[in-house]
């Protein structure tokens, strides 16, 4: 029983991190019709900036609060200085542009921080384990579950209940019509791109104490996030949640019962979804 609970929490913690990344990826696709290849690098940037912030201040909490807006600003600046000019081109070019940006950012981080992984200590409050009815479980992972659930609910409420969320959904549904009705589409795009990067950055800071900040974490997370959105459907927040849970569960139980094959199970799930619903569980058929 304790074992099942532990696996369940592990799956939720992993799914939470995946959601923070894939939600932004999906949101940006909904608004900009661009799959942001650089999205994983913003996650990595968050982890490294988190390392710097913790090293400078000695505190984890300020890093968790300060880093996401910084990552978001970097994202928004990159969108308005490059991507903005090529929205009218075929989607290939936008994908390639974000690929170029990913390369530049990844190499810049390598130059600034060097090749070794950077460890980040969790805050004192979240160190050690907590006793959950006989199961000793790391506090930090529990915190990840709480954090990502909170963010998921907040994002969902923001999109479905606020006026700004309404405008974003309108732009996602039909940007020309939204433009005619007075929405500032260019601004919405920049802000959504920035917000998505900030979410990824938050994921990065939150992940750093568990995984350390290392080169290559961006690509590994973007590949997993791609799998999540292929399963869940691009452009759907609910799809990102469902996809994250499926991938998180498949990886956790896969790693537990059949190590070495965890990723194979994830790909098998993705293959099954593609055969029966090529546009994803919650996506819309093009």
């Amino acid at each position: 029983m304790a074992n099942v609970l532990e696996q369940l929490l592990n799956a939720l913690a992993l799914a939470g991190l995946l959601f923070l990344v894939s939600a932004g990826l999906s949101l940006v696709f909904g608004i900009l019709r661009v799959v942001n290849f650089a999205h994983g690098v913003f996650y990595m940037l968050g982890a490294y900036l988190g390392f710097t912030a913790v090293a400078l201040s000695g505190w984890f909490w300020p890093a968790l609060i300060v880093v996401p807006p910084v990552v978001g600003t970097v994202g928004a600046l990159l969108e308005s200085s490059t991507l903005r000019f090529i929205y009218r081109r075929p989607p290939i070019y936008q994908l390639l542009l974000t690929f170029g940006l990913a390369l530049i950012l990844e190499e810049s981080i390598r130059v600034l921080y060097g090749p070794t992984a950077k460890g980040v200590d969790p805050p004192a409050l979240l160190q050690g384990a907590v006793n959950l009815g006989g199961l000793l479980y790391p506090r930090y992972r529990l915190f990840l579950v709480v954090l990502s659930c909170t963010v998921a609910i907040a994002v969902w409420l923001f999109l479905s209940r606020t006026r700004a969320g309404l405008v974003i959904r309108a732009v996602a549904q039909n940007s020309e019509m939204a433009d005619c009705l007075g929405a500032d589409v260019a601004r919405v795009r920049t802000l959504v791109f920035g917000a998505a990067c900030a979410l990824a950055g938050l994921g990065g800071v939150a992940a750093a104490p568990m995984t350390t900040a290392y080169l290559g974490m961006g690509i590994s997370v973007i590949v997993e996030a791609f799998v999540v959105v292929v399963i869940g459907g691009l452009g759907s927040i609910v799809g990102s949640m469902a996809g994250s849970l499926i991938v998180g569960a498949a990886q956790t139980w896969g790693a537990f019962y059949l190590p070495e094959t965890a990723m194979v199970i994830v790909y098998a799930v993705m293959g099954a979804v593609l055969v029966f619903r090529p546009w994803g569980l919650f996506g819309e058929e093009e």
Partner: protein
Amino acid sequence: MSASRVWAAAALVALAVVPWLLARHQLSLLTDLLIAGLFAMSLDLIMGYTGMVSFGHAAYFGLGAYASALVLLHWAQPVPVALLAGALLAGVVAVPVGWFSTRATGIYFAMLTLAFAQFLYTVAYKWRDLTGGSDGIAGVPKTLLFWGGPSVAAPRAFYFLVAACVVLSFVLCRAVVGSPFGRALQAIRENERRFTSLGRDPRPFKLGVFVIAAVFAGLAGALFAPFRGFASPEVMFWVFSGQGLMMVIMGGIGTLVGPILGAMLFILIQEILSSYTEHWMIFTGVVFVLIVIFLPGGLVGTARRFGVIR
């Protein structure tokens, strides 16, 4: 003689004459460049002619490299046997991957190809007994041209082998593109919905071109392994897939010859910058971003726009 024939003749003469004028290091650079050009050209088949962006093309290059390395190292067969093995393995693996990936279109296709490539990369990385893990397979020999034939170990001999493969592949790719099959691919690129409404199923065509492109990428990889003397997981890594995309875009998408020129430009930039800084990828990335924004046709597309060539 038409202009394109003059260009083709000039290119052939250059390929034959230039190696005699170069120093050893430059010759090796030229060989490298031709192998990269072959890789980029194969990517152009799916990217430029069918409109499907693959983010995982390096996987087939890598499969070719591993197959070739194993055949040469363990069985000491002539190089062409290794080339066939590399091209064949890449093509065989591309069938299931392509079957899944071509069910999706556009962005989904790009993501799927990347996911499968990272999966193959992980396999190459973890299957230590066969692939040597992160160390890869070293000491791959350049063997004979055929059983009892001459050795291709000399740099110039190997260069001519590579050049012959590239020229042959170029001719074959041209034939593919010009065939009814190739016309169908371009129709799919222009308007897949119309293609479908004319009563044709695009998927066999997409799968077909995906496998053909993988075969040529595998051939490039199979040349790479004996040329460099090793095969390692890096050649399957996403960064290399991305470099292929960059070469295609820099040279000119949908032109076949453009990607070869793009590979030339890319490797020359790399060669020049890497003597100044080890972080040349940043500058290459910047050049690439600028080309995507300002010169979407690449070298060939831009030259066409200004009427330098047709």
